[in-house]
Structures are given as C-alpha cells and as structure tokens.
C-alpha cells in the first residue's frame, strides 16, 4: 500500500539530502517567510514544506500530478484536513502508549506489538470510512488512486481476519513449537505453529490418547527451571514477535508516509488561505521544457513581501521569451531586488508543484536554481570581500549543470567598476554559452551597457521605473541601462 501523493510512481523520500546551495537560496529569496506561512508554527510542517519546496521537480508531468492533487485539496479543504488528522492521531497514540519503543524480550515485544495493532485497527477503520464517504469528490489521478486503494486493501473481509488474528495472538492456550535437532543435539529451528482448531471426534481422541507424549511440570521452587522454560518460550515466540512487531511497524510506517505526503498539501492549503485573505491572486503555471527559454507573466508579486507587509503588493508584468540574459538596472529602492526575488520564488514554487503568486505565469523549467547575492562584510576578516564572492562563485560553478537558473544581485561590486565589470562579463559570457539562464541585478553601468551595445537577441534589459518627479513605481520596464542609479535622489530625500 503506497500513498503515492507526491509522485505517481514512487514513495516520497524524506531522507534525501537537500541541494548544497540550500542555505544561500533560503537566505537570498527570504524563503523562511514562505515556509512559516505554510507551517503556521508546526515544526513538522515547516520541515516538510522546506523539503518539498527545495527539492525541485524537473519533469512537467510530475509537476502536473501534484498540481492536480493540490487543486483537489483547494476544493475539498476540510476533508483533506480530516484525512491528515488520522495519521497524526495514530502516531500520537502510539507515542503515548508505548513511548515509541517495545520491551526487549520476545514475549514482551509480542504483547506490546499486539496491543499496538489493536489501536491501529481503529484508525484503519477511520481511513476506510473517509474513503467510503468522500472518494467521489476527488478528481485528480493521485487521489482517485489513493481512495480506491484504501477501499480495496482494507475491505471488510480483511478487517475481520485482522480482528481474529489479534485474538489468537494472545495465546491463551499456550504456545505450540516445533523443534529440530541441531549441532550437539541442541534444539534448533524453533518455529511457532498454529494449533488445529477443528473439533476432534471421540474416535480421534481415543486414537490420539495413545500417542507418545511426555510432560514435565516445573517444581514451584525451581526458579532456575522456570527461567529456563521462559527463555525457551522466548526462543519459540521470537519469530512471531518479530512478525507482529514488524507488522505494527509496517502500519506505523504507512501512517507516517501518509502524514509526510499530505503535509506538503496542508502547507499549501495554509498558504492559499492566507493569500486569499490578503486578496492576492494565485495561478497554476504550465511549465515548458528546460531546454526552451520562455518567461512571461502578469501580476507577478513577491509573495514574501506580501506576507511580511501583510497586504497586497505591486505586481509586475514581463514578456521575456527566448531570453537567456535578463539584466536589471535602475533606481535604488526601485524594486529591483524584490523583482528578482519574485522571479526566483515563482520558479521554485512552480517546480515544487505548487501554484505561483501571479495572475498568470509561464516559464520554462530549469535544472537547478542558484543565487549569488552580495553579502555583508565577512566579520572574521579571513578573506577579502571580492575573494569571498569569487569563492562562492566558484562553488556554484562546481555544482552547475546546463539549463540551470542563476540569480545575481549586485555581485562583484566589491572592487572598482572596471574590474568588477570585467570579471562579471567573463563569467556571464561563459555561462550563457553553457545555456544558463541569467538574471543580473547590478549597478555596474559598464557591465550592463557593454552587453546592451552588443544587441544580443537573447538578452533583455529592464530598468526600475522612475517617474520624473522621482517617484518610484516599483515597476520594471524595458530600457537602456542608465548611468546613474539616482542615489542622489535618496540622498536628497534623506537630507531634506
């Protein structure tokens, strides 16, 4: 019984390591704001949301599979939340009753595990009930498969056999073991067998009474003997205790898988409810293959900014199909960083199978997403700033594969403009030839202008809009890089 709500054909592995550039991504795109909105203070949800968002999908079919399930969730939010409570309660009861561990000896393991199975049975019945009541309201491939699996595997007959096993496993009539002789005539191959339960006729009874049979009763004060017999019984129930404990563990692991695979959708539900409250739009993108270059959107906003400000924020429109280099220059505090972040977040949300924060969004998939942002001065003084930047750049190059996306924010400005521009120019040229999509926010006029003059077909130049009255609109418009970033505007604003 596989849950298969994250992938159509395989289990969701939460042991998978996060990509090495995770920390930089979280820091640069302010992803913690997003994760917190999904988790709503639940540390498990936080962890799972992070993982789902950061382990990007790169297959459009896998993305569509999750989008379908998420759409079902948006339409049946209450039912999905109830479904999610089943594994939560089951796992909680387990922790309460057994502290999650069994006793050490086979006899103890057997009785602990049997009781746990009894408890799990209740929750399996719950699960079946939800499937019976609500399956019809779900239309995605993932949920349809999930509910019919529950109805099939947990059918009435199965549940009733389960009940009778639980009764038999208490071994009220003693245990029956078969044994063989091993080396040194020591007993070996202890197997616990099922007793025959058919009633014997009187003829059979008469016959069987002639069978050779030898019995021994341990003397009341023979503690040593009682211990020896106890350990013999342990030997006999060792295998069945293992079987029962593993069965309990299997069911536990099934509930756990259900909890894990639903958590992403619960997080997405939390987020969508918050955005609806703010009046921000969401949409499901249709991603293009990673070897194509397309990017166009309307009303794309920085979700983290909206969540932080707790209000609607300015959205941007863009038509940048067939572009590999997007160079963004212009006014300070004109929304360049916000714009860059909104692109990065939309990309990463799209590739997790979620909706994106935009009225509409179309983009190509990318293999990996990297960020290279200007950092605060290294307080340890171990390396100079440019040195530190270049070393991070070199780490990225180590990991980079074609058709990845790389977001630069004010990189290589730690030296003078000439050198910084030349370093950046060489890096950009090399990366474009390797089919890396580059988004570059910079004040380096020489850099931006140099590329502009090349009139490359695959480059687009955006400028943070500035009305003549120095008002900033936080909109990006296409245009020639400007020589000044209007720092003087801000200076005046501050000193007036």
């Amino acid at each position: 019984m596989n849950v298969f709500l994250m992938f159509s054909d395989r289990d969701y592995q939460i042991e998978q390591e996060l990509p090495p550039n995770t920390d930089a991504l979280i820091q640069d795109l302010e992803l913690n704001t997003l994760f917190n909105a999904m988790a709503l203070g639940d540390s498990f949800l936080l962890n799972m949301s992070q993982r789902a968002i950061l382990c990007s999908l790169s297959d459009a079919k896998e993305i569509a599979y999750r989008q379908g399930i998420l759409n079902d969730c948006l339409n049946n939010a209450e039912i999905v939340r109830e479904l999610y409570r089943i594994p939560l309660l089951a796992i909680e009861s387990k922790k309460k009753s057994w502290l999650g561990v069994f006793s050490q000896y086979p006899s103890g393991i057997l009785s602990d595990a049997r009781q746990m199975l009894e408890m799990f049975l209740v929750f399996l019945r719950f699960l079946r009930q939800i499937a019976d009541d609500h399956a019809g309201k779900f239309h995605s491939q993932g949920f349809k498969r999930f509910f019919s699996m529950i109805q099939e595997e947990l059918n009435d007959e199965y549940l009733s056999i389960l009940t009778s096993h639980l009764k038999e496993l208490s071994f009220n009539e003693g245990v029956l073991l078969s044994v063989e002789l091993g080396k040194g005539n020591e007993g070996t191959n202890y197997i616990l067998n099922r007793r025959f339960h058919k009633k014997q006729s009187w003829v059979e009874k008469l016959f069987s009474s002639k069978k050779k049979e030898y019995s021994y009763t341990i003397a009341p004060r023979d503690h040593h003997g009682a211990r020896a017999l106890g350990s013999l019984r342990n030997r006999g129930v060792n295998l069945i205790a293992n079987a029962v404990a593993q069965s309990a563990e299997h069911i536990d692991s099934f509930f756990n898988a259900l909890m894990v695979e639903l958590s992403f959708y619960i997080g997405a539900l939390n987020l969508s409810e918050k955005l609806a409250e703010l009046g921000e739009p969401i949409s499901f993108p249709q991603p293009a293959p990673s070897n194509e270059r397309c990017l166009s959107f309307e009303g794309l906003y920085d979700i983290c900014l909206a969540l932080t400000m707790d209000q609607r924020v300015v959205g941007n429109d863009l038509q940048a199909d067939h572009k590999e280099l997007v160079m963004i220059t212009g006014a300070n505090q004109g929304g360049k960083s916000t714009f860059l972040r909104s692109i990065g977040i939309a990309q990463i949300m799209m590739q997790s199978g979620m909706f994106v924060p935009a009225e509409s969004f179309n983009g190509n998939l990318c293999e990996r997403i990297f960020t290279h942002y200007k950092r605060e001065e290294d307080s340890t003084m171990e390396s100079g700033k440019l040195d530190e930047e270049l070393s991070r750049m070199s780490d990225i190059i180590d990991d980079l594969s074609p058709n990845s996306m790389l977001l630069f924010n004010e990189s290589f400005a730690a030296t003078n403009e000439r050198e910084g521009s030349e370093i950046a120019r060489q890096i950009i040229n090399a990366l474009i030839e390797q089919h890396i999509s580059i988004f570059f926010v910079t004040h380096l006029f020489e850099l931006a202008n140099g590329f502009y003059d090349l009139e490359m077909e695959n480059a687009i130049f955006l400028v943070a809009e500035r009305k003549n009255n120095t008002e900033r609109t936080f909109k990006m418009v296409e245009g020639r890089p400007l020589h000044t970033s209007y720092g003087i505007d801000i200076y005046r604003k501050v000193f007036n």
Partner: protein
Amino acid sequence: MVFQSILFCKDEYRVEENKDASPHFLDDLNLDQIIDVVTKSKEDYHLKPIFNTPLSDIETIYYRQAVMQDMQEAPLMEEIKNFASQMIIVRRYLGLMERLDYHYHIRGWFLEAVLVYCEAINTLEHGLGKMELRSTGLIEFYKYLSNFVHGHAFKMLLSHALSVKKALSNVKYSIVIKDGKFTVRNYEDETDYSSEIQNFFNKFKQTESKDYRMKLDRQSGMNHIEAIILDFVTRLYPETFASLDQFFIQHKNFVDETIRVFDREIQFYISYLEFINPLRKKGLDFCYPQVNAASPQIHAKETFDLALASILLRSDKKVICNDFFLEEPERIIIVSGPNQGGKTTFARMFGQLHYLASLGCPVPGKCASLSLFDRIFTHFEKEEDIRNLRGKLQDDLLRIHNILDQATPHSILILNEIFSSTTLQDAVFLSKEILAKVISLEILCIWVTFIDELSTLSEKTISMVSTVMPENPVLRTFKIIRQPADGLAYALSIAKKHRLTYTQIKERLYS
C-alpha cells in the same frame, strides 16, 4: 619415501620443540620482533620453536624453499587455509566436549567434530588433486593423503558419521508450553504461524523494517530443562540415539597423527608468507636465496631490514634498499659513515638475511646468494650494568674473547660500535688487534665502526659507508654504499649543520 614431515626431508633433523627462548643474537638482530609478529596470529600452533631452529642442512633448506614456493600460489594457499580453519573447528568441538554435562549433548558434538574432520580432509584431498604441485614435500604429502582418503578406515568413518547425522536431522518434535508445564510429542504437520502473520500485514510495508528478533544464539550449552526435553526426545527416537552411542565407541580416536602434524607444520609457511605479503604489495622484493656451504662469494641486491620494513608498513615512509657483495678473498665488511645513516640497520639486515635463509624462507631482496653458517655471533653495544663489577671495557673484551673462542670459518660475526667506551687511541689499537684475529679465523664478519681505517688493513676487508645528500649534507639517504671511507666529508657535513665551517663562522662573526 613415506611422507613424514612438511618441514624436514630427512629423519635425523627435528625441531627442538622446547626451544621457546630465543638465543640472544635474535634479539640484537631484531629477529625476535619478526618472529613475534609472524607467529602472533598463530599462537595455538606453537610455531616459535620452528622459527628458533635454524637448519644446518642445505638439502632441507631447499626442501622448504620448494614448499614455500608452492605455497605462494593463491589457490593452494586458500585450500590449505580452508583446511586449517576446519581443523580449528574440529579441535574446538573436541575441547567443548570436555566441558559438557549431558550424555547425548557430548556425543552430539563428537559427531560434529568427526563430520567437520572428514569434510576437511575430503576437501583438501580433492583440492590438492587439482593443483600442479612442484615441491617434493607437498607431492609426497598429497600421495599420503590420497591413500588415506581412499583407505577403508576413512571411508567407514565417513559413511557411518553421515548415516547417524542423517537420522538425527530427521528428528522433529513439538513442545507445548503453558505456564509452568511443558509437553514433548511428535510433530504433526502444524503450520508456521509467523510467516502467515508476516504475509497478512505485508501490504502496509513502506520500507525495510527493524529486525525485532532477539539474538538468542547463545554459546553452546544445555540447561537442565533442555536436558529433560532431550531425554524425552530420545524416548521418542530410541534407535537413532542408540546408533549415536555405537558410533562414539567405535571411533573414539579418529584424528590421523601425520595429518595432525602436517596441519601444524604447514602453518610455518603460511605465517611467513602472510607476514611478507603486505610488504610485497608495497613493491618490496623477496627472493629465494642460493645457500652455499663453502663458496666465499655472497651477494644480495635491493635488500632491506625486514623488522624495520614491517614497522614502516604502517606509515608512509619509504623503505630504503641496499646492496652488498663479497668476492674472494673478501670476508669482512667495515661499515662507517654519518650517524643515524642506517649503519646498524644494515648490519642487522646482513644477519637477518642469513638467518631467514637458513630457515628456508624467502629473504628481502631481488636476488641473493648467502652463506650457510654454523653459528651467528653478535656484539651490540649494551647498557652498562652496574652489578657488573668488571667495567664495560673489560666486559666487552671478555665477550669478544668468548666469541672468538667458539667461532669457526663457518660462523657469522656481527659487531656494532664496540669499544666506544674507551679513548680513541685505545679503540683503534683494540679494534686492530681484534680484526687481526677475525681475519686469521676467516670468519664472515660485518663490523660497524667509526674507525674507518679498519677497512684498509687487509685484502679481506672492504669498506661500505652511509651516505648523505650531496646538496644538503644534513639529510641522510640511508643508502650504504661500497666505497672507500671518507672521514673528511663526514666531519664537514657535521660542521655545516652546526654552522661552523670557515665561511659560516666568518659570516656569523661579521653579521
């Protein structure tokens, strides 16, 4: 010839079995370290006496060399090791029996010992039959083994053991345990409940789950409850256990003596090869030396101190190899040169090589031709002993006198920095006197000394010196080269190290 021993081809030679204590020259040559390491993992075989008994017979040396060469073949080595590990099990089972209390428990283990023994011998005979053996020792052993395996006694033992074992493995019974009571009866085709449960719940399985089985495999043993159960079982199967009794009485002493001895003695070869194998893998050469009784010519190429190499194995340090040769009429190697330059190591190596060759072992080096010796004498600088009232110089002289009394032209003498406790003048005088006696006795000798003029005193002496890097005299090469001693270069390098050359002193004084 009837096969007797894998170590000796002649009846008159034997290992001195109580020779556990090693002669003191083994100590000086660090051979005791080598022997300790070689025999360490094989203590049960008690191999030290073998390594402590050098051979004086060339034919036996070559007999062993041939066996050792055969044993270098991996398939044969595997075969023998496999045999040895089964024989260890046989001994363990037989040892176990002495500690057990219950009749059929003891006899059950006896049967296991016989089964493993038969299996071991059969496998070995079969395995050796497929090998291309070249050594007389192993060919003769195989003949013996083959006759043994196809003999009536062994065949009877095996078939008897198998039939008793078969009957015992067919025994299957049931125990019903309820509270403080148990019942033993015949098994009646009841079905396994554990696997039924496993199958029933398997659908929930997501990943491999933990193994909850308790490790119940205790050491062999039987408590009184198990003994009662076994007793009940013997009543269910009386004939089967009667045949076990009969088997025990019939085959009480089943281990063949020649095979038992072989099992121990072959470990001599295995232990040594296992010891040198990692060194070989590191690129160091070993060779089977020619051993001569009379020829004055000896040589070895790219040889090294085996004890040192074995220690260096654990580090990245390189093992330095050296050559030497002596031609008619040369008999004495005088080693001089910078301290810590590898002189003592070189002298030890010379002794090790001869000793290992006399055991029939391969020796360090690309090729070697060595001398058969009657005795090895060493005199290495010893700590002064305050209980010794005679004083060190007198003590040194007494020991050397003692050695020269016993030494013959077939002896090997290794001297290391003697007379260092007296004045240079005395040391030169005494050394020259001793050297004259050594020369006249025609002893094969290696002598480490700071008195390099010793090397020029006779046509029987040659000079070898430890060397330094030409560009940086402070660095030692650990190469010992046959060349005239040059005391001046040595003194200058030391002076340089302390910045006391003419130029250096001038510089220091004027800076």
